[in-house]
Every structure is written in C-alpha cells, then in structure tokens.
C-alpha cells in the first residue's frame, strides 16, 4: 500500500519525504545514527520484490526528488533525480523527439530510481539491453548519509569503478540512488507491431527465436500464453477474418527504424511467420499497437505469484514449453522474451497451492540452467523461502558488499538475497 507504506504486513512508525539530495542525506544519516532501519520507496509498484524486511522503522519516500538536473538533447544525455516517474521523464524527452529506450510496468507511478533498483524492465531489452545498459553515471547517498557519485555524463567513461552497476537491481539495500545520468536516443521515425498467433507455444517460441536470430534485431519479441493470450488471438483473428484455437499462443514483435528499413523488417518478419506456420498475423500501426503490448505486463489485479527466470534463449524456449504444459499451467499468464532469454509467469490462485507451484517452477527452471527469482508471492510464504534462490559462491561477496556499504543494516535489512 503506497499510502501507508506498508510492506509485507509491516507499517513504519515514521515517513520521510526529502525534497533534495541534501535532505535525503540528512534523513539517512539520522536514521543510521539512530540505529533505525529504512525502506526506500519510489512509486511503490515493485515493493513486492525481495525477501521479508527484518526491520522497518522509517519509510523514505523518494518521490520528492523529481527534477531534471541536466538535459542536453544534442549530446543525447539526460540527468534526472531518482524520484521522477518514468512517464514524466519520457514526456520531457519526447518534446525533443527523444526517449529512454526502456519500458517499465506502470510508468506513470514507477520512478526512475525504483525501476533501476528493482530492475524493472520490459520487452525493449531485446534490442537495447536492460536499463543498466543506459546508465552512464549515478549519484548515491550511502546508508550513513555520505553523498557519492560514479561515472559521469558522457556516453563513454571508464574512470574509476563502475559503481552504478552495484545499485541496479539491489532493491535499495546498498544505498539510495539519488540522481542518474542516462544515454538517450531518438524516437524511431517509424514503428510497427506484428502480432501473430499459433496453436502451440513451441511453434510460437521457435518462430520468435528465428526472428530474433534473423537479419536484424527487432526492438522486442515476446511469446505470450494463457487465457489472455487466447482472448487476444481471437480478437486479432476476427480482425483478419481468420480463427484462433482455444490453445492459441501469441507472438508479438516490435519493429522500429526509418520508414524503408521498417518496411523491409515487416517483409522479413511476415515471411518468417509464414514459413513458421503461424495461424495468422496482423501488422499493426499507430495506437493499435498498444493493445498487443499490454500482454507483456502482469495481468490486471494482483497475481498471487509472479516469477522471472533468465537463461539462454534456447533454454527459455524449453522453459516456456514446460511451464505451459505442466499441471501448474491452470491460471497462468506466461510471457517469454525469447531473444533475451527471460521468462515471466504470473498465477492467480489459492495460497495453499503456491508452494507446490513454486517448487515445480524452480525445478523446471533449474533443469534448463535458468536462474529463477520469485518476484511476488503471498507474504506469509516469504519467511520460509529465499525469493532469490541459491546464488552459490557469489553470495559471500554480496554479503561482504552489504557489510562494506551498509554495515549497520540500515537499508531494508533482510530484503536482499541470502537475507542480506
């Protein structure tokens, strides 16, 4: 709950909302000196990620830090405060026909800092890598209030250690991201979406792989299975005077570049789809494209369980197939970013069934060499499992990281891997 800053059933005794980096520094110093613990909040859209916080006294709401610090369109660089929402930043960039080429869930609420800290990335990572690949500099307020920075605001920089990497995906357990410098890009001149449907998840995934490994890199490629995919396939089929089966699986491909390039990309993509025996496809333009991309996100309402597993693309293909067929497939929404190798799955169901589903999913991911993270599950289950899974030998280094950067356990203690 964003308004109460409740996390996994715990409500903090105090809420702070600093409006400057200096104020953030003072706030953290006070909390750290007072041996209290803080949880950092952005838009609150991904607070469910992570283990159970073991001590939570103060909520530090970062949304007061919402300014653009520096924007130089001609250098393709923007520096923004971490509490700015992704939509607000994109709107500013859009005025110059530019964008940050990454897509997050709930961009109107999700903040830049929160998206980085929780590694909130959508399908565009297929072409542009994760959000971490766009960060060129970062300022961080450490747990004790010390203000630090690394990188800079030019697109190439190897002076000093690349400290920003450490905070991306760290769930705010090593410091508070305060400002971020990004490498930005132009909004492509032409954008098209090709949406196809198949009668099996394997056929869709194989076609997706073929397209990703083809003559060019599409912006995004996702395979979607589950009831929502079936409904969407039927809608698409109706538009196309065709039909979709009760097991339909959707493959969505984003194409973006100059007009002549996109025309060629559409040709290559649709000819691959034909050869891959798609049941049908449509080429979408303008606002129509949005509907298919909504499938990339989590289902409406709050799912009981969400997992994300990353592995090699061929292994992702196997995992998508296994998950869609297993006994746990009941009420599933399955999104495979097959080119990148990520598989996300969402379930709605009874809490009592969840541990069994987790076990099956973990074992399926393990069998294909995947690293599975539980992104959301009922809080009452979190005390018995590490949502990060077994990280092996590097976990020891991660423990020492926490010891170095937050020795008193001020920032979301227990929330990270190994309950760091």
């Amino acid at each position, binding site marked *: 709950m964003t308004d109460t800053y409740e996390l996994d059933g715990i409500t903090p005794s105090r809420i702070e909302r600093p409006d400057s980096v200096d104020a953030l520094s003072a706030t953290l110093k006070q909390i750290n000196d007072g041996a209290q613990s803080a949880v950092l909040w952005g838009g609150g859209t991904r607070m469910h990620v992570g283990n159970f916080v073991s001590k939570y006294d103060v909520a530090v709401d970062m949304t007061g830090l919402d300014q653009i610090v520096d924007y130089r369109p001609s250098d393709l660089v923007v520096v923004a405060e971490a509490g700015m929402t992704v939509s607000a930043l994109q709107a500013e960039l859009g005025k110059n026909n530019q964008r940050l080429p990454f897509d997050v869930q709930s961009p109107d609420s999700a903040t830049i800092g929160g998206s980085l800290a929780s590694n909130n990335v959508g399908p565009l990572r297929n072409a542009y890598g994760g959000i971490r690949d766009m960060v060129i500099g970062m300022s961080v307020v450490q747990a004790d209030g010390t203000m630090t920075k690394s990188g800079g605001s030019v697109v190439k920089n190897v002076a000093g250690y*690349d400290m920003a990497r450490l905070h*991306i995906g760290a769930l705010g357990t090593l410091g508070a991201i305060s400002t971020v410098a990004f490498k930005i890009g132009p909004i492509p001149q032409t954008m098209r979406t090709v949406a196809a449907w198949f009668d099996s998840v394997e056929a869709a995934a194989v076609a997706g792989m073929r397209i990703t490994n083809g003559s060019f*890199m599409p912006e995004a490629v996702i395979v979607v299975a589950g009831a929502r995919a079936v409904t969407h396939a039927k809608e698409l089929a109706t538009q196309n005077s065709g039909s979709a089966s009760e097991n339909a699986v959707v493959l969505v491909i984003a194409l973006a570049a100059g007009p002549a390039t996109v025309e060629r990309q559409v040709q290559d993509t649709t000819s691959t789809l034909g050869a891959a025996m798609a049941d049908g496809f449509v080429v979408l333009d303008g606002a129509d494209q949005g509907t298919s991309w909504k499938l990339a996100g989590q289902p409406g309402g709050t799912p009981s369980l969400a997992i994300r597993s*990353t592995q090699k693309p061929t292994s992702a293909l196997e995992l998508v197939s296994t998950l869609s067929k297993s006994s746990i497939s009941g009420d599933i929404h399955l999104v495979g970013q097959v080119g990148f190798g990520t598989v996300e799955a969402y379930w709605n169901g009874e809490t009592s069934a969840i541990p069994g589903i987790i076990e099956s999913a973990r074992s399926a991911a393990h069998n294909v060499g995947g690293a599975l993270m539980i992104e959301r599950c009922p809080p009452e289950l979190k005390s018995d499992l590490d949502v990060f899974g077994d990280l*092996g030998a590097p976990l020891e280094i991660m423990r020492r*990281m926490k010891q*170095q950067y937050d020795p008193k356990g001020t920032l979301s203690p227990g929330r990270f*891997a190994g309950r760091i």
Partner: protein
Amino acid sequence: MSEKSALVHDLEQVVEPTHVVWRPEDLLVYEYDGSIDRNNPGAVVVPSSVEQISEIIKIARKHNAPVVPRGAGTGLSGGAISMEGAVVLALTRLNKVLEIDKENRVAIVEPGVVNLELGQAVAPYGLQYVPDPSSQSACTIGGNVGENAGGPHCLAYGVTTNHVLGMEVVLADGTVTWLGGDAREVPGYDLRGVFIGSEGTLAVVTKVAVRLVPQPEAIRTMVAAFSSVEAASETVADIVASGVIPGAVEMIDRLCIEAVEPAFHPGYPEDAQAILLVEVDGLRETVAEQAELVEELCRKHGTTDWRTAEDEEERETLWASRKKALGALGRLAPNYYLIDGVIPPTRLPETMSKINALSDELEIPIANVLHAGDGNLHPCILFDSRQPEQVEKALIAGGRILEMCVEVGGALSGEHGIGLEKQGYLPLVFTDEDLEAMARLKPAFGAAGMFNPGKIFPTDEQREGIPHAAIMQRLTSDMVI
C-alpha cells in the same frame, strides 16, 4: 648473479620452470606495457590452467606478494605494469575459444584469446564480437574485460560491459567462481557489471562468456575531408544530434594524415585538415537511409572531398589508416603519449581548437585521432623520450588536456582506464568520499592488497603534488630508451 627467491621456488612447483621468469635481465621484457610508463615486476609466471592460477594466487598470498594479471600489455594507462614488486600473471597461454553457441549467440573464451582472433573464430557462424579496440590484432579479451575496452564501433553498440555476459574468476583466496553467467542476467548484485573495468584489481579472469551479434547484411564506409578540424567537429556534433547513430564516426587530423598517407596510401586530399571516417551498417535499407543523412550533413558543413569505399579492400585500407594510425606516428616522432579523454560531442569544435592552441603554446606537436561520435578524444602528444624536458612537456600537455575535458563536463578516460597514468587526476572529478566508496569494493571482493596494487587510486603525494610527478620520476631516473 641473483638468486631465486622462495616465492619463485614455490611458483616453480606449480608451473614448469620455463614459464617462471625471475632473472632481472629477463624481467626487463615485462617492464613495459603500451603506456609510456615502466617498472620492474618481482617475477613473471605464465600459467596454462585455472588450477595453476588458483595455486599461484595462494602461493603469492603466502609470500605477501601481490599479483598483476596481464593480457597482451597493449593497455595505454599502465594497467599491466607491476608495482610494489608484484608477480605478473601473464595469461597469454590461456588462449582457446572453448565454445561457440550459434543458436544462443554466446562464446566462452579464455582470457588470453586475442580480440581479432575471436572475431575470426565466430565469423564462419555469421556472427561477430562488437568491441574492436584499435589494438584488436594484439589485445586480449581478458584485458578488454579489465579495462572495459571500447573501439570505433562502440558508438552504436556499446563497450565491453555491454557485450560480456559473465566471467569465471579466481578470487584472492584461490576460490574459482563465476560472476554473471552465460545468460543475459543473473539474480543478485551485479558483480559482473562492477567487475568489468576494474583494471585487474579485484580478481583474475579465467573464462569469459561473450555476447555475439549477427554480422550486418550491409556495411558502407564513407570518408569526408574537411578544410578545418572545426568544420569536421561541427559535422560530428550534428550527426550525433540528428539521432542517427552510425556504427562508427572517427576523425583524424592533419598531422595524422601526414603519418598515415605514406604508410597506407588511403588517398586523402593533400589539403585536408581533417578526415571523417563514418561507417553505417545493418539492413541494406538502413544503410541507405543513414548514409544519405550523413552525406547531407557532411556536405552542409562543406566537405571538400566525399567518397564511399567501393569494395572490401578499400574499406580495409581506410580502416587501417585509422586503426593503425598510432604506429604510423613513428614517422613523425620517436614517441607519442596518447591521451584518452571524453567530452560531450557538442563541445568538440571548441575543445579541438583549444588542443591546437595548447600545442602551439607548449611548442609540442599533437596529432589527433578521435572516436568522434562519442566524444572520445585521443590526442597523441609527439615527443622524444630521450629528452627529459620533452617528456615533462608531454606530461604537462596531457594533464592540461584532461583538465579541458573535465571543464566541459567530460571524463578522464573513455576506454583505456586510469591505471598509473591518471590516478593523480581522479580528484579532478571524484571527491574523497567517491573514491572511498570505490575503494571498498576491494575488501568486498576479499582482494585488499592482493591484485594490481598502486593503480587507480591517487596516492597522498599525487593529491598534494603534481599529478604526473611519479611517472616523470620513473621515466627519467634510469633513462635507457
């Protein structure tokens, strides 16, 4: 006649004695890397397996000897030079491409694999490894990871960190582990990301999983000559601002042209003051679209000569003129000191003018090669290292150029690292708190005092005195060049 130390004796129990170098006259070979600096190592060991490396590290630890991992030694910031009597761990025998996974576009390679050879190994699969430092015919993938190396084609496609999925490393206690893996991401803190570019100070890389991409369907390499560096710089700034991101936008200036023309005969116009080399790649349609825009912008800024490489041979000649420009500088002076600074592309015109003015002021020639598209300058200060006053002048000029970069919001290094060369300049950009936070990575990796000592972080003397004083002292104390 010197005697084997106990350390060398122990090392010879793990690696064949022929692969342990310890006699002072033999160690001289490892005194240098590609930078202008030098210092003698305590010993050099050339292992052939990860097991040996693990044992070597344990032995070094027992003898309180730090370890410096070394690839081909092409680094230009002194990263592979041994300080404090450290043992150099030369990784050149670990030079196998272990696996090429075409479907997943990943290769697993040993750290001593040469960058260009990796490219050749994956080419038959229709794939390529993107980062292409100019030293790619010699530099190694392990070294590229250490320095987060770049190259001309990083403008559109990113540097090493964007193309390495993970690596197997040996930690300071001899433990072998992977940071990252063979997939695009792993859960947990991004140890892979923070490790890349750590200049051999945190652990020793023994395997690298690299990301490969398909070779482009079409490539077009274009050359535009300009009658002034400023006009060429303005063109670059306009190309970047247009949002079209070519595969590469490189520049060389008049002095470089004088060096490369007789060496490679690229056929640049005699009166050209600056040459832009622009390459676009991708689908045929992409290449046509981008090339048209680039040509339009070059013409708008008054290019005096415009041409497109007709065939692969001409393309290679044009690239040789850029990538091997440094070697050709030997025609102009016995030594060069290459500065690796970065500025915002919009500040190119004024910065290039300032560098020319500096050259006049100090009466020392400066030849410029630039990864212009990303604002990565490589001014090459030409000097004669046998003349101590010229050495000092070169170091002063280098420092002044770095200050210029910082003044316009740039960076101290785009791809070569800090090493020994620039540690004195880090306080220009980073506060004590920033550096302190960085320094804590070493204990976090359990590596405090163990790997590549004396690098990156400024010493107290450097903070208080002249940043280049230590290098000057090393270079002039026993000048033998």
